[in-house]
């Protein structure tokens, strides 16, 4: 599509969507949000860019094959699950090595651990898989339009 308004707006919107998606991913453990919603948010940004520029351009700027991204995401989630059992708990059990609860003072440290890894995996899986679907569909429709001309 060749629209100056859309192109200019996308230049502004894409970073907002991506930052918002990461914020939503980050707050997801205790508040509404999480990897799935965050991933979808990021997809909106990428899809908007793909419409404003082109599919090829979006693929180029994404740098990685979206399916590989989804694969890496799935791997992150599995590792996040295995981490729990490697640390002596059950599969998928939450582990926070830099985080502890001190009675009387509340929580201390960084809430980074297996749960965040799992959620990041979900984020990447959704981003990769949905982008792959959108790109494949757009390309098929585009090829059809070209073919009918």
């Amino acid at each position, binding site marked *: 599509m060749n629209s100056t308004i859309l192109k200019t707006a996308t230049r502004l919107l894409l970073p907002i969507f991506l930052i918002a998606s990461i914020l939503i991913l980050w707050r997801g453990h205790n508040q509404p949000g999480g990897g799935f919603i965050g991933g979808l948010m990021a997809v909106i940004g990428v899809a908007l860019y793909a419409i404003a520029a082109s599919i090829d351009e979006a693929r180029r700027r994404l740098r990685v094959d979206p399916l590989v991204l989804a*694969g890496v995401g*799935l*791997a992150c989630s*599995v590792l996040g*699950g295995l981490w729990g*059992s490697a640390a002596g708990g059950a*599969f998928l059990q939450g582990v926070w090595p830099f985080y502890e609860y001190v009675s009387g003072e509340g929580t201390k440290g960084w809430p980074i651990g297996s749960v965040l890894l799992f959620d990041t995996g979900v984020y990447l899986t959704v981003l990769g898989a949905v982008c792959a679907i959108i790109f494949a569909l757009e390309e098929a429709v585009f090829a059809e339009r070209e073919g009918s001309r």
Partner: protein
Amino acid sequence: MSPEMLLVWPIALPMITAVLTLVLRRSPVGDTVSLVGAVALLAAGITLLMHVLEFGPISAQMGSWAAPFGITLFADILSAAMVVIAGIVAVAVVVYSRQDVSEGERAVGFHALSHALLVGVCGAFLTGDIFNLYVWFEVMLIASFGLLVIGGRRDQMDAAVKYVGLNLIATLAFLAGVGILYGAAGTLNMADLHLTLADRQNETAVLAAAAMLLFAFGAKAAMFPVFAWLPASYHTPAFATSALFAALLTKVGVYALLRVFTVVFDGSGAFLQPILLVGAVLTMVVGVLGAAAQNDVRRILSFHIISQIGYMVLGLALFTPLAIIGAIFYLFHHIIVKANLFFVAGVIRWKAGSEELDKIGGLLKASPLLAILFLIPALSLAGVPPLSGFWAKFIIVQASLEARDWWVAVAALAVGLITLFSMTKIWLAAFWKEHPDAEPAAMPVAPRSMIWPIATLAVMTVIIGIAAGPLYTTAEEAAVTLLDPLAYVEVVLGPEAVAEARASEAAELQLAEVAQ
């Protein structure tokens, strides 16, 4: 390693393999990784089965969320053995796919999708939570959608439309059934459901949920009258894919029937049993008659899957210990034989150039070894002694005679005869008669990667047939645990829950006596 992890590996390993093969899908290393992953799955399955055989059923709570609130994984002999057989099929399919699956299909992700399918299959075998079962069904379904269309051929698109459309209906019925069940019982853990629903089997909501789930699992298992997706699609993808589908997809449906209609619902209940019984017999008969009308090797075999599913459901419908043993034995035997027959169909296509019966022939002269390798699973499928299928059919027929369901026994035997006719039809057309165009000597030699899986599975069929004893004992033990849901509950929820259930049962009995 804690025994709980034994339950996780059969799901995590194919998941990891799927990721690796997805990333490596355009590289030649991908094939090797896929094979290693399949072997690892088989090893994980065998370890799990050994553990279960030695120490009895085990369960694990994901994330340490106690049952019934978290997701439970559970394995008894039946589920562990199914994982082992899925592993065997996985190895065979990956080896077979080396020559059978085209470069293009591999570049799109044949291996990744196959392993994703195995994730769903093993997850469905091992889960102890009915909503989780739904999720694994979906994983399996999405992967199978992908496998059906990666070839991109015209007929594959058409087949996929039918497969997808009809399976999605079944899926929605499953979901709605789970919703109704949750509304009625307030829990989704199968063990907890057993306790909650033990004396509420004839409530309308419970029966409605049972009907929805019976429809959903029946459609997955290709029972009459919801089997149309199967013969529409199984003859279109690559042969390795066909074999994978034929071996595992419908059997997950049968497994779900066996599990849910023993633990959650009472399969011998007054409402369910007649439906199951009539459905099973009609499935057998319609499937075999459909096969007799076909003229294409894989289409004949597809209809035979339906008819064989009828035998397994029949085992569940009769609901005597012997019948359940028969159903389980049938499940084990059928997966191996059916995968093998689809493999043989691939070699027939490779050598004779077609699958249509009147375009092929001359294979007996061209390859006597292949003829033997076809006869073993074919005769086993028809139930000729001493092959594995004979024992499977024998147990089922014996069980129906003991239950005094004469007409069922007659139907089972007649279906066996017509199966033999179908197999003879393939034998005459592909092996016995002359090839319409080609000279036997000029036919291409089938690659070893296609012959080895066939030979291995054929040897297994013969071994199961000759030494049926140990497998029968395993099936018997599996049936004992399956028919004792309280043992299942004890493993998942702990002995206190069972003791409580027994106490309240005893109290009710006392109350009833007092009332009298």
